[in-house]
């Protein structure tokens, strides 16, 4: 018994065994239709995200406009942080782009592995300044609002920093879990295939 015994002819070569024949007009037409509806759904998803971004901007802009100097800086930073963060999330959390599937397998595995890693070095380079912008903006608003009740600036600052740091840690933990759930198995499989290539 040889591997060559399993060459063409021993495997079914049509998914349905239908009579229209492979690539027949009716079959191809049906496939194209279903893909078109899939593409429309994907487009709608992008639209939802863009709409959410615009809504965020609209909600915060009137508040930002009404504020005095220091508060307007705070709100301005919050708006900038939200919008840039949402754009970053949208770009970073997109699934594997279709174009990388046409690369040779070894290159595909490298690219896919790189895309699927949670928080790469470049991500930290973007996320840290973003968090600083959000943290500063939120901190300004928090401290100015609560300074009506206490003159202890340091106390307010410490409360804000502790709250914000805990919030960031929680958000990172949840995102990591979510990432693991969505991409963990795929990433492990890619590692396995890459290891087997090296052997």
């Amino acid at each position: 018994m040889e591997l060559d015994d399993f060459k063409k002819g021993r495997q079914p070569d049509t998914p349905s065994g239908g009579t229209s024949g492979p690539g027949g007009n009716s079959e191809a037409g049906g496939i194209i239709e279903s893909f078109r509806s899939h593409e429309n759904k994907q487009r709608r998803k992008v639209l939802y995200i863009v709409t959410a971004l615009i809504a965020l901007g609209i909600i915060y802009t009137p508040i930002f406009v009404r504020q005095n100097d220091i508060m307007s800086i705070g709100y301005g930073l919050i708006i900038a942080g939200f919008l840039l963060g949402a754009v970053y999330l949208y770009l970073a959390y997109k699934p594997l782009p279709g174009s990388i599937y046409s690369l040779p397998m070894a290159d595909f595995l490298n690219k896919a592995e790189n895309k699927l890693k949670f928080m790469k070095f470049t991500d930290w380079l973007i996320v840290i300044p973003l968090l600083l912008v959000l943290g500063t903006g939120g901190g300004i608003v928090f401290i100015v609002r609560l300074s009506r009740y206490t003159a202890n600036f340091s106390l307010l600052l410490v409360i804000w920093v502790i709250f914000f740091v805990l919030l960031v840690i929680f958000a990172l933990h949840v995102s990591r879990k979510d990432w693991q759930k969505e991409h963990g198995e795929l990433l492990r499989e890619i590692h396995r295939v890459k290891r087997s290539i090296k052997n």
Partner: protein
Amino acid sequence: MKRDELFREALEENQKMIFRVCCRFFGPGENAKDAYQDILLKIWMNIEGFRGECQLKTWIYRISVNVCITFRSKNKRKSSLFVPFSEPAYRVPDEEKLLEDEENKLLFFRKFMDELSGADKALVSLYLEDLDTREMSRITGLSESNVRVRIHRIKSEIKKQWEVEYGTR
């Protein structure tokens, strides 16, 4: 040329090959059908970006292999070990024996494939499509010598395993 036309053309020439590759990866069950759909979707979404840097067939093989490697891990369903046969009402004894042998071979092949790594599965699929070493190297990104060594190793292994299980028949 419009996307639909390009896609139809690609499908017409390669549909059977794509499904055969899926069946070799997953066995002829639901997984193979799902992976096949996924491959067609990727082809449809990217066909306009195909610039002819390689042959269309090579480009489609790459997509097929890459989708099959990553698809398996997304869906944990076990591949089907059983190949559907069209059963006649009765068979003469010789014919029965032949079909039994055939069935054993296919079951053995599926079991063997299930144990291979994704990369080796891809190589077997391409080898069984009668592709030469250079073409397999272009599709997988492995060097030609690496492809040769791996195919040789797989051939020896399948022979060895068969002999352990069924003797030298």
